[in-house]
């Protein structure tokens, strides 16, 4: 999932300081799962914004709505009946959702309520960790199913560096050394030989290096 965390209240209250009618929009997908921008978080933020405003001598008219997805125009359309009744939209979705709302509604300012963090997985209840950087040409098949781009601090394709110690990364003792994990897994699979194959310099064109990316499925595209 795409993970996110709510921005500091100070930043959020600054965004809406000149707006009284706010459409606060959650998303039912990733940010719901990582407890950053689902229905519950929308309600909490609405209450927090309201209480902040009350201390400044006003009340806000906050409309709470949580869409099935904010990254699809069909769902964004559900905001249309509300948009003329508000001064601003605050989105609790990832950056994709914020931008979709901005694209659809040209005359209403849209503010992000969360910081979009990374593509990750849930390690345990309440803990999410980075797993993928969307490089566009997956090499997990060479690295035992563990991504060195997302999980090595230096994203070494031929690690580990000299700072791996007791299976942990030199920059943070709470962080697993990705290459220790890769090696352990290759060994468990009897694929030690794979380690000695050099992974050549990566072609970053498939990633962000090639500029903003787009996927076009001819059979589906209209």
């Amino acid at each position, binding site marked *: 999932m795409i993970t996110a965390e709510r921005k500091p209240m100070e930043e959020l209250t600054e965004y809406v300081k000149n707006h009284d009618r706010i459409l606060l929009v959650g998303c039912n997908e990733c940010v719901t799962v990582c407890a950053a921008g689902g229905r519950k978080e929308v309600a909490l933020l609405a209450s927090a914004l309201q209480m902040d405003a009350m201390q400044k001598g006003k009340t806000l008219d906050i409309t709470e709505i949580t869409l099935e997805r904010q990254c699809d125009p069909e769902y964004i359309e559900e905001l249309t009946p509300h948009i003329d009744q508000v001064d601003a939209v605050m989105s609790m979705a990832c950056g994709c959702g914020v931008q979709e709302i901005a694209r659809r509604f040209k005359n209403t300012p849209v503010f992000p309520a969360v910081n979009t963090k990374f593509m990750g997985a849930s390690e345990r209840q309440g803990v999410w960790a980075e797993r993928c950087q969307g490089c566009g040409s997956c090499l997990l098949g060479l690295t035992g199913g563990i991504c060195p781009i997302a999980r090595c*601090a*230096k*994203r*070494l*394709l*031929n*690690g*580990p*560096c*000299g*700072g*791996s*110690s*007791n*299976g942990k990364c*030199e*920059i*943070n003792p709470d962080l697993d*050394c990705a*290459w*220790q994990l890769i*090696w352990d897994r290759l060994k468990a699979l009897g694929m030690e030989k794979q*380690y*000695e194959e*050099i992974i*050549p*310099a*990566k072609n*970053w064109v498939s990633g962000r290096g090639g500029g903003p990316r787009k996927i076009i499925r001819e059979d589906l595209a209209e």
Partner: protein
Amino acid sequence: MKSESVLEKVLVSGQLAVTSECGPPRGAVPEIIKEKAELLKDYADAVNVTDNQTAMVRMSSFAACVFLKQMGLNPILQMVTRDRNRLAMQSDILGAYAHGIDTMLCLSGDHPHFGDHPEAINVHDLDSIQLIQMVKTMRDEGKFQGGADILNPPKMFIGAAANPFADPFELRVARLSKKINAGVDFIQTQCIYNIDKFEKWMKGVTDRGLHKKVYILAGITPMKSAGMARYMKNKVPGMDVPDEIIKRIADVPQKKQADEGIKICIETIQRLKEVEGVSGFHIMAIEWEQKVPEIIEQAGLLPRPVV
């Protein structure tokens, strides 16, 4: 010969090579680099010039190398993949070679987390092994990494680092083998304090015959005090300092600790001279360059060969 490198000539001649290190200043102060170079001039076959070591901004390795070259030393251009992408690294290699710098050391570099710009992005377009491949392609095929031909390709003698003490230990020989397959010519190791463990690693190296494919220079760093020894043990990632070493230094009076550190250094060199596969020594006296001549002399590594 792959290059005009003096270090290569010494190593090919079969004599023990000696390299040392000098860290460029944190300012536009050529005098500092020149003073350090002067100390090392007649004692080391080649001198590494670090590249923003520990992720702290310093005068560029390339610029400092030029000063050394002008003074008649043989600088080793260190290059970390942390700060530059493949375009920037290749252009620096061309520039360095044009200034007569013919030896380099390929590293991934310490993470910015440790330095004075922890907010900087780490580039790591390539890793150290891919950097080795790139420099070798430039030299042997006369081509840029992107495939185009180079006018007067830089003939670099290619070095890399190895840390026999990092984890997982069982990978350390395999990783050296990867560097050899990538095209490395010589290796400088992490500072050696745990000689037993180093010998164990070297056994793994010689068992696979890797010492015949690469020149290995054993890394030596003198300890100034028991405090430094403890710091190296506890704070420097990938450093293995046995407790006996710390105790040995701590057991002599404060004033004599530096001398004890030098003594340990010299004993280490003497013992490592006997280890199969050791082709020389890389003596890194961190901000203590004035001690290097003494160590080299007392370790019986003088005079340096003229090649």
